[in-house]
């Protein structure tokens, strides 16, 4: 049944047109694509579905409910902001891939059955890899390949999971599935697939590898969709799965340490992204209505403020050619508008009152306390202070303030500024009018972010954390920015080949090889030489006697063994 416009269709058409057209017409099509998609989505009645018959399957291409609608809406907004931000880009591969990528994300969150979900999942992987590759330098080529390996592994895991699940009699229709149980057949594979894309600890390395390597505009697209699609999938299939609490807590904690010592500011933001997804994963793991609402609203806000921060660093990259903290500093005089917009993103992610992070992150923390997870609450509070340190202070400070780098810089093109302004406006708007976001959430919201206690305690935490950063910097204890490579878990596979080589060819193995050569080759060779020196007739006699001798020896051993038993 078709009711209205399938929201992915404009993106497919838009991508084809954008890869043919040039100049102004392409810009118009690129801008029109998410707008048409958005109008199509808003025109859909609640509960609308799109089904088609394919190879005897009845595929539910789209099934709109509150959760899928919210994510589809978010992806349209993020897509529009991304297109505006990238409007000056002449690279046709990038803009075409980006539109298909946005469409894939929307198709995945709207999917009404697991087969459609899988197809969307794979397209998301493929189209985004082309965004990475479209930068077309050595680093992005290598990184893009590693990225695609991770994404394909995720897709493969999902496919295996769906097949086993279906084989065991599980339904493929998402509406019938409800919450999946980790102990049922195939489901752990599905969980792993979501985990790779969500950046679970040890599976997270593709995020910090890829997002700093793509182009200024490419990363803005990448950062918004893949991980949030995974958050959607976790919220859809695994709410209340307790394992997610531990996984999410780990995700909020470990990146904040890396973020302190990392020099590339886009890599700092990549670690920051894992930290923010951690809050969402914790919320999904807690699974109460308040926690799920918190996780979903935080995903919504994160796309906007993380996008804004990536855009501001992209602007810095665009005009200076670098995002390394060691090279930057003092840009606020030359880029005052970008500086202010970056500060709005920094305040939003740090959950300063009146900015968007304040109204969503605290829902997850309140839910943790309601469920009696006190230890978790203390961890999340610590992680919140960590967010302020790296995203709230470090990013703007090292880029725009600190010492003057004397870099050539100016404000980025007007379209970049406009995209950032829209993002910043939404961050402040949601921070001041959270009820509008709350009304879109899956469950009715019974939560008031603006209480005197909440505002006061949050300001106490943030102001004293800031004071702490200042004191540590002034006293020289704060680690200075250094041009270094900080090893993360990816060292296991990026240097793994060498370790494998060492395992095969280590000193002990070399000794064993030498020993085996001696025992198996050289000694028998010597014996053969000796034997050959013996006259042939004697050899024959030996050949006849030897088996007899060996038999005798075996008998002797057998007797002795029995005697001493």
């Amino acid at each position: 049944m078709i009711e209205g416009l399938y929201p992915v269709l404009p993106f497919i058409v838009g991508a084809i047109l954008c890869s043919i057209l040039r100049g102004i017409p392409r810009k118009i099509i690129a801008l029109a694509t998410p707008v048409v998609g958005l109008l199509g989505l808003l025109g859909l009645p609640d509960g609308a579905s799109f089904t088609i018959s394919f190879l005897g399957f009845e595929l539910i291409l789209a099934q709109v409910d509150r959760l899928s609608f919210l994510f589809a809406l978010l992806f349209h907004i993020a897509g529009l902001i991304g297109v505006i931000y990238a409007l000056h880009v002449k690279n046709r591969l990038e803009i075409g891939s980006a539109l298909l990528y946005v469409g894939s994300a929307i198709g995945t969150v709207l999917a009404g059955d697991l087969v459609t979900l899988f197809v969307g999942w794979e397209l998301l992987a493929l189209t985004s890899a082309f965004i990475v590759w479209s930068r077309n330098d050595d680093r992005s080529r290598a990184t893009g390949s590693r990225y695609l390996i991770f994404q394909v592994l995720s897709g493969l895991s999902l496919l295996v999971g769906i097949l086993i699940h279906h084989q065991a009699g599980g339904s493929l229709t998402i509406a019938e599935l409800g919450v999946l149980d980790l102990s049922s057949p195939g489901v752990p594979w599905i969980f792993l697939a979501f985990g790779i894309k969500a950046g679970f600890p040890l599976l997270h390395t593709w995020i910090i590898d890829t997002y700093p390597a793509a182009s200024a505009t490419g990363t803005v697209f990448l950062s918004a969709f893949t991980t949030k699609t995974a958050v959607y999938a976790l919220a859809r299939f695994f709410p209340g799965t307790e394992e997610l609490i531990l996984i999410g807590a780990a995700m909020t904690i470990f990146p904040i340490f890396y973020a302190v010592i990392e020099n590339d500011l886009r890599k700092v933001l990549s670690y920051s992204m894992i930290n923010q997804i951690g809050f969402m994963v914790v919320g999904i793991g807690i699974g109460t209505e308040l926690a799920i609402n918190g996780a979903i609203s935080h995903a919504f806000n994160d796309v906007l403020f993380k996008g804004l921060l990536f855009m501001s660093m992209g602007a810095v990259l665009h005009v200076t050619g670098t995002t390394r903290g060691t090279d930057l500093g003092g840009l606020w005089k030359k880029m005052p508008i970008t500086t202010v917009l970056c500060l709005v993103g920094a305040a939003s992610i740090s959950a300063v009152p009146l900015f968007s992070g304040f109204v969503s992150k605290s829902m997850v923390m309140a839910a943790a306390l309601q469920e009696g997870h006190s230890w978790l609450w203390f961890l999340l509070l610590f992680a919140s202070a960590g967010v302020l340190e790296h995203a709230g202070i470090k990013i703007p400070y090292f880029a725009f303030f600190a010492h003057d780098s004397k870099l050539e810089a100016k404000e980025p093109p007007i379209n970049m500024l406009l995209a950032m302004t829209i993002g910043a406006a939404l961050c402040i708007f949601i921070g001041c009018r959270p009820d509008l976001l709350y009304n879109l959430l899956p469950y009715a919201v019974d939560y008031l972010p603006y209480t005197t206690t909440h505002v006061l305690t949050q300001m106490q935490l943030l102001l004293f954390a800031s004071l702490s950063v200042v004191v540590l910097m002034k006293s020289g204890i704060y680690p200075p920015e250094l041009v270094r490579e900080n090893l993360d878990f990816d060292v296991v596979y990026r240097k793994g080949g060498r370790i494998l080589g060492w395992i095969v060819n280590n000193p002990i193995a070399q000794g064993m090889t030498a020993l085996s050569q001696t025992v198996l080759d050289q000694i028998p060779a010597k014996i053969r030489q000796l034997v050959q020196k013996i006259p042939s007739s004697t050899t024959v006699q030996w050949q006849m006697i030897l088996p007899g001798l060996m038999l005798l020896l075996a008998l002797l051993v057998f007797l002795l063994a029995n005697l001493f038993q």
Partner: protein
Amino acid sequence: MSDPDHSSPSRIHWWLVIACAIVFAADFFYHRHLEPAVEQVEGIPGFYPIYGFLGIVLLVMLSRGLRAAVSRKEGYYDD
């Protein structure tokens, strides 16, 4: 910033100190709503300021340790 700025505090730092003093003092005048699960800790006057300040100190100290453990020269993966 490759070299931390050790200069004397500027005006913005004094504003920060004043703001900190105000929100800290507020704990002694305003009765905060406490969450039952963490009432005993959260109820200590100055809990949030102290937690925020020491949290960052702990974060930075541990990060220095992390840097010592995982930091390699740039281009480590290219060799």
